[in-house]
């Protein structure tokens, strides 16, 4: 089932429009709130559900954890690094899950363009761009490879 925006919660910030990989979350021309313009093209990636700061987007869960007739609500707590889910099953049972999503504050990871451009000598390195500092680890100094005389 595609995403559904609760108009009473949405404040029209545009986060869902920005993050939707299918580009199907748009802004309603009358109420200036988000809505799904092409429900049958939604692949239920939950990106908008997790990005919405107002917890305004509802979506049906995958069939492997919630059979038909249920309702899924999500609570986003970026300051705690967790996203919680509440499922109301069709027989009335409630289940809640809390998923830790990260260990660093929201927005603290630098995008690649914020790093200095590597020089050409880096092309011979076995490390990926901006490693190891981007991984926040100290790279071990490996012993020199000894060749046999």
């Amino acid at each position, binding site marked *: 089932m595609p995403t559904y925006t609760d108009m*009473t*919660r949405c*404040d*029209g*910030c*545009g986060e869902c*429009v*920005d993050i939707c990989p299918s580009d199907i979350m*748009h*802004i*309603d*021309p*009358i*109420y*200036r709130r*988000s809505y799904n313009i092409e429900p049958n093209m939604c692949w239920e990636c939950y990106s908008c559900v997790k990005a919405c*700061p*107002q*917890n305004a987007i509802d979506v049906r869960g995958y069939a492997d954890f919630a059979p038909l007739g249920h*309702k899924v*609500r*999500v*609570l986003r*707590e970026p*300051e*705690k*690094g*967790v996203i*919680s*889910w*509440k499922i*109301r099953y069709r027989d009335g049972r409630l289940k*809640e*899950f*809390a998923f*830790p*999503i*990260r*260990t*660093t*504050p929201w927005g*603290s990871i630098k995008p690649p363009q914020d790093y200095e451009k590597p020089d050409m000598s880096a092309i011979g390195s076995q490390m990926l761009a901006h490693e190891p500092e981007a991984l*926040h680890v100290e790279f071990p100094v490996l012993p020199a490879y000894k060749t046999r005389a």
Partner: protein
Amino acid sequence: MFTNNPFAAVTDFFSPLAMQIYIVLMVLAVVIGTLLDVYHKGSAKFFAQRKAKSRAAAERPLSGGETFSLALETVAEAGVSGEFCKWPRRLSHLLMMYGFFIYITTTVVLVFCYPSAASVPAILSGLWTLGASMILAGGLWFFFLLRVNVAFDGDSPFHLGRADLFVVSLIASVAFALLWNYAQTAYANPAATWITFGLYIFFTTLLFVGVPWSKFAHMFFKPAVAFQRRVEEANGSSDLPSPSAENYIVRS
């Protein structure tokens, strides 16, 4: 300009009573427009159903004192536009909201208490100008840079749609109000004065008569929804998951 009462010049052609009747008609237009909007959208029915649902699902009933405290919290949140998650939108909204209150209040005082006085206390005229300027600053900032369809949906900053009826008529109304005041004091050109006055009245009427088609009524709906949401969170009937007890952020 800052001690001028722009409405005094109108009394040469219209009686003070006509201006006062116009204001009363605009208040009626807002009331009727909001009621039509409520009827058209079924908002009253929606809120009644939501309230009944919340009461049925409540894990603990709220006392009168708790409900009153939640109402105060809602007013406090609305007073600082706390529902907005991004500071530029919040600041622009606050400029427009407080500007609107100041502007409307001083307009009513000027028209009802000083209808034909050419010179009024500087504080009154100054607040009228300040209120209009705040609306203009917040409104233009919102219209050109912060509108979500412009910022995120790829629309041109000059795009106009039905959702813009409220903000455009508000901006145009105060812009022509300021120009009208300026035309009276600094420019002293009768033609310019009457043209700006005509445009000011046109956009002001559009602002208040257009309530059923514009977003004007959101200033009544939003606090009602915010209050209901607080009640649902307090009585345990909210459909949202409980907040996590653990903090998983371990590194800055």
